[in-house]
């Protein structure tokens, strides 16, 4: 793991991976969504609205995967002081928040014709909304710490504490009565027919590649900013020493 602690080595790998991840993700996710929209048959009970599910499920998965990334990177930063872990956590926050917001929006749009309501305050929807608020809090905190120069351990602790919400989201439909359906895909198999399951899995894989590409692009941007700031600060120091 410490082999990647060297930013130069990490940047070499990231430069090589960013474009393939983004292009591969766009092709796979785009293909799966196009199939769901234009070619999949209407579902027996949900009708046409089942076409929303590959998009909704993929973004729900990435909303949770984004915070899991933040929590793991925060743990690595706190325990091993890995120099890139804090950068990785900050880079995962905006894509995670975006996918959590898309999941909430598409779920609400799906719920109106299916459940007859845009929103219910049940365990799954409420815990997902809390996840979005946690993301927004994390982004604001990390930006403030970066701008004001506080300890990077504060957002790392926030990232770890916020991870409590992930199992709550996952088990919410099992623990509490909910309009939201329980998991259709488990380790024991799937309750979905292949014509719905395959595009859902391909869309989830494609969106995961996109997430990886976006996180790498954001890490490259954050590292470039840090390196440019360090260079300007060093130069300003040299100028002030020469003047003295």
């Amino acid at each position, binding site marked *: 793991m410490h082999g990647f602690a060297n930013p130069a080595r990490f940047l070499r790998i990231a430069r090589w991976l960013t474009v393939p991840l983004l292009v591969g993700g766009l092709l796979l996710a785009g293909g799966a969504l196009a199939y769901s*929209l234009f070619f999949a048959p209407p579902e027996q009970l949900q009708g046409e609205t089942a*076409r929303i599910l590959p998009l909704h499920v993929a973004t729900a998965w990435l909303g949770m995967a984004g915070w899991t990334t933040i929590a793991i990177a925060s743990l690595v930063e706190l325990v091993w002081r890995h120099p890139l872990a804090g950068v990785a956590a900050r880079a995962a926050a*905006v*894509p995670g928040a975006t996918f959590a917001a898309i999941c909430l929006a598409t779920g609400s749009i799906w719920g109106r014709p299916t459940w007859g309501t845009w929103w219910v305050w049940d365990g799954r929807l409420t815990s997902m909304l809390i996840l979005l608020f946690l993301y927004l809090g994390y982004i604001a905190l990390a930006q403030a710490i970066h701008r004001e120069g506080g300890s990077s351990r504060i957002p790392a602790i926030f990232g770890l504490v916020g991870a409590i919400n992930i199992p709550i989201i996952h088990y919410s439909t099992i623990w509490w009565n909910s309009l939201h359906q329980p998991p259709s895909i488990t380790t024991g198999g799937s309750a979905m027919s292949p014509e719905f399951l395959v595009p859902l899995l391909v869309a989830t894989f494609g969106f995961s590649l996109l997430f990886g590409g*976006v996180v790498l692009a954001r890490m490259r*941007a954050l590292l*470039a*900013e840090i390196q440019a700031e360090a260079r300007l600060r060093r130069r300003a120091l040299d100028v002030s020493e020469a003047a003295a």
Partner: protein
Amino acid sequence: MREGLDQWTFVLIAYAVGVLGTLALVGWSWLAMRAAERRREETRRK
């Protein structure tokens, strides 16, 4: 009374939100990365 909602309207709005949101995220992250790396190269050259 049952509402006569057109399901396709909801499907298309959901896709518009999802696809445009994702493309905006990818485009913004890519442009921010290019701009930050350009700034770093400029500070190196100065």
